């Protein structure tokens, strides 16, 4: 095996499209080395949102170290949870050449 496999955290955020730009800037500041975006729609505890008109939700996935994951959870919970439609969860992932993403 000439490539390394590193255990990292996969942080997933699903939120209103309108927050995307702001959120991505912050996530990079908090230490995310990259991210993958997909368009999504969904339903949760909160009903309507402004971005419904603006198009679907956005799903952000980031492979990060445990520390960065924690920082991201804290930040999102503090800043966005009260007023915006947002869900955040963390999973384990084994990443090929994962040292790149730390």
């Amino acid at each position, binding site marked *: 095996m000439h490539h390394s496999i590193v255990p990292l955290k996969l942080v997933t955020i699903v939120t*209103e499209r*309108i927050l995307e730009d*702001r959120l991505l800037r912050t996530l990079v500041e908090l230490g995310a080395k990259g991210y993958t975006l997909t368009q999504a729609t969904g339903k949760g505890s909160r*009903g*309507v*949102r*402004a*971005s*419904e*008109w*603006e*198009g*679907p939700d956005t799903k952000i996935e980031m492979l990060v170290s445990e520390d960065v994951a924690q920082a991201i959870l804290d930040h999102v919970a503090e800043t966005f949870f*009260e*007023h*915006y439609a947002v869900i955040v969860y963390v999973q384990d992932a084994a990443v090929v050449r994962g040292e790149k993403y730390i």
Partner: protein
Amino acid sequence: MENLDVLAANLLSPVILAFVLGVIAALVRSDLKLPPALYNGLSIYLLLAIGLKGGVELSKTPVSVFIGPALLTLFLGLITPVIAYNILRRLGRMDRVNSAAIAAHYGSVSAVTFIVAITFGTMTGRAPEGFMPALVAILEVPAIVVALMIAFMRDGRAGSWKDALHEVLSGRSVILLVGGLVIGALVGPEGFEPVEPFFYSGFQGALVLFLLEMGIVAAGRLRDLKEVGFFLVAFGILVPILHGVLTIWLAQFTSLSVPGAAVLAAMVSSASYIAAPAAVRIALPEANPTFYLTGALGITFPFNVTLGIPLYYAMAEWLIG
């Protein structure tokens, strides 16, 4: 009598009937739905087309003719959010943030209501001045800024005023309207000619598809009607009429024609549902989107395109004509 004919003419136009078809499709839970990409593309097309045509007309309009209506529009953009805010606070006893959020929407303008008003006038032989689209661009932004300023006079706000201002100024409706105006003014009637079939002849038909989807979206809002309460329903019909009357009354002091006054009244009475929601969501996240979206989209938009527009034309004729 004649007014009833005119009302029928409006209600029986393909554009309005497409809106109704969209509402019905949603109510019977049809799978009919414009793909978001197409819907988005249509909105870009419509806004750019309005801007271009306005710009071409503006290139033919002397400043002396345009300045009066332009100043009136600016004034209405500054005053209508204040009116709406005070009605919501005092009569509706709504909290400050939600009042400001709704006021931003009712002060700004719905481009589609504007287009329907123009179409209605043209169809019934009463076309307004060609520079009206330029007034849409003037009317869009100020009300949002005023309403957010009202809300931000209070401290400790969660939303970001700077982000919101950027959102509204660089939002696609402003870019497309203002950009289209400038392009249209620069190229003039001659330069516009080669793109006329696309932006002019196709316009009404594209609007039919767009309103089909708007009907589907608006029907989704209708479900929230009971949630917003009786006051907001009344607000969504009476405040537009109030703004319309105010507009027409003031328009008689400018050079605006009767149809011009009627279309301006439709614009001022309309509530934004593209630019305003985006800005308000960022600046006033505690405001409840159900209130302002249901008001703008579920109540005021359907009211205006069906009954409101013929009413403003009738009022303009009666007051000015």
